[in-house]
């Protein structure tokens, strides 16, 4: 019966426009705040997770990691394989690496970091390490006798500051001594210091594959090929495509390879996120409910009178639901505006985390969930008090 809704809407609109503006404004503001609270922290956390994942892709793994076949220790015929990979549709570039431990000594300080042998130009196509040169220069493909040192590995002059074994504050131009696993020792001039913000990179050292092959006496070998694909997110499908194109080496996605501690950090954030969302939601429910409830109870006498002059309770209940929905809609809209301002501000001056600036990520699902839950709460908060008040006997309602 549409007539009933019309009357209910008429009543609701007058109660809102001619009611206490302060109360309504306050209620709308509260809902806006609750809405922001419901969205803000989860979106920051989502931003952190995205940052971590992007860092993993950009500095450690690319999208896919190719490793030697089941029964082999090394990838051989790297050049050929790399060409094969690069021809697969969806692949942007690939870069072979030879990773192993080596002992580095500088002025009596000795430590055993990861030494990664790379094709500097290929790396540029896949990773962003080259953008993180803090001082000195990045490697060239033909470089021999030169090394890049991560800033964490380089360490500080004041060793009390360092939390991991370091080289005690080495700098560009200095020479370090590297002892390889096969016992060969060579001197290297430090060409650059890398400060990428990614711990695994900043605590490693880099030389060219050309250099390493001269040390090991091998040619065209690697123990990893990192692959960059056009899209992030469809790694599983790309893995299958690569297999279909005849790649018989083991293929991992960056998610597979992500360090366990990173996975557990992301996992912890997820838990924080869930808890924070639940708490915000409970607060939202309680606050909205109380505010609308009090507002309705306050009009108890009026509800009694309306019933006394023959207005059916369903009309009264509907008019209170309309009022609650109006408050919900305005509150959510105001919340969106507030959130927008906040996001603009955070885009202009981002929060900086280890690993880089964090941009809040507004997942549509999150927004949807917040809106739906506030909607349901408002519906109940509009319905329940008016339902209860119209259920009691008219005289006690009128007496107030």
């Amino acid at each position, binding site marked *: 019966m549409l007539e*009933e809704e019309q*009357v209910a809407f008429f009543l609701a609109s007058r*109660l809102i426009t001619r009611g206490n503006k302060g109360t309504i404004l306050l209620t709308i503001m509260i809902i806006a705040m609750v809405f922001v609270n419901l969205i803000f922290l989860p979106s920051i956390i989502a931003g952190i997770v995205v940052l971590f994942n992007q860092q993993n892709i950009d500095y450690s793994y690319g999208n896919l990691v190719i490793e030697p076949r089941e029964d082999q220790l090394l990838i051989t015929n790297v050049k050929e394989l790399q060409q094969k990979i690069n021809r697969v549709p969806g692949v942007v570039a690939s870069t072979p690496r030879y990773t192993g431990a080596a002992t580095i000594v500088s002025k009596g300080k000795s430590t055993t970091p990861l030494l990664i042998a790379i094709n500097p130009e290929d790396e540029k196509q896949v990773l962003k390490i080259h953008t993180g040169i803090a001082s000195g220069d990045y490697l060239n493909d033909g470089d021999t006798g030169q090394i890049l040192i991560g800033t964490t590995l380089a360490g500080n002059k004041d060793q009390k500051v360092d939390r991991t074994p370091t080289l005690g504050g080495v700098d560009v131009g200095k020479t370090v001594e590297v002892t390889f696993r096969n016992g060969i020792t060579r001197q290297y001039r430090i060409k650059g210091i890398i400060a990428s913000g990614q711990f695994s990179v900043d605590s490693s050292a880099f030389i060219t594959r050309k250099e390493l092959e001269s040390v090991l006496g091998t040619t065209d070998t690697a123990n990893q090929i990192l692959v960059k694909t056009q899209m992030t997110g469809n790694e599983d499908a790309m893995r299958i495509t690569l297999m279909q194109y005849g790649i018989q080496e083991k293929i991992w996605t960056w998610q597979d390879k992500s360090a366990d501690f990173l996975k557990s950090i992301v996992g912890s954030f997820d838990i924080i996120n869930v808890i924070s969302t639940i708490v915000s939601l409970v607060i939202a429910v309680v606050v909205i409910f109380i505010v609308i409830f009090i507002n309705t109870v306050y009009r108890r006498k009026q509800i009694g009178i*309306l019933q*006394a*002059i023959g*207005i059916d309770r369903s*009309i009264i209940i509907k008019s209170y639901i309309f009022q609650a929905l109006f408050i919900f809609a305005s509150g959510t809209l105001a919340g969106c505006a507030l959130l927008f301002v906040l996001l603009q501000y955070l885009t202009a001056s981002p929060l900086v985390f280890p690993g880089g600036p964090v941009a809040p990520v507004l997942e549509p699902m999150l927004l949807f969930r917040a809106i739906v839950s506030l909607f349901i709460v408002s519906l109940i908060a509009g319905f329940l008090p008016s339902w209860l008040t119209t259920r009691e006997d008219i*005289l006690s309602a*009128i007496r107030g």
Partner: protein
Amino acid sequence: MIIGSNLAKIYGKGTVEVRALDGVDIRIRKGEFVGITGASGSGKSTLLHLLGLLDRPTTGTLVIDGVDVGLLGERGRTLFRLNRLGYVFQDYALVPELTAEENIYLPSRVRGMTVKECTRACRDILSLVGLRDRVDFLPGEMSGGEQQRVAIARALVNNPAIILADEPCANLDTRNSTIILDLIRKLNRELKQTVVMVSHEEWHQKYFDRVIVLKDGKIVSGGD
């Protein structure tokens, strides 16, 4: 025609029993203007609440215009109030957020008149109670007498057979009381509406066709 038989309203507070209304037989004919009077606490309001279907009697039956209203469900009683009864409260009981016109509009719209019909009925009825120029006033912007006239207009708008008024002049001075009483009497005479009005003012009694006197929940005289 209102026929109440053996109407009683008993409030129980633990072992103490308050017989607010104690076996009342009452008959009110169509078109009558009946006054109910009696000392404070004698049960006047209680009786009017029963007649206005705002409360149910503990025992007894009430038949209004041939309908045994005790048999109606809540929805039926609400509809009955909307269509057949007009209730006027001592404290006007207008919705403060609605203008004079909108207060009257509400019950007529709920009854099913179109917006156009409603607006017309509202204006007509406001003219009838002499408030044509107060159409857009909010209750807070009107005097007590004016508010009570709006309340009467609201009670009248659905052209009810019976108007019930519980001390409608209690908060008004003599001048305004006279206006209200004259108005109610005019409605009673011209529109042939049955009016039952509670009042304990001696001078009001000249308006009534008949006076029912209550004492301790019982009718002392005028019960017919």
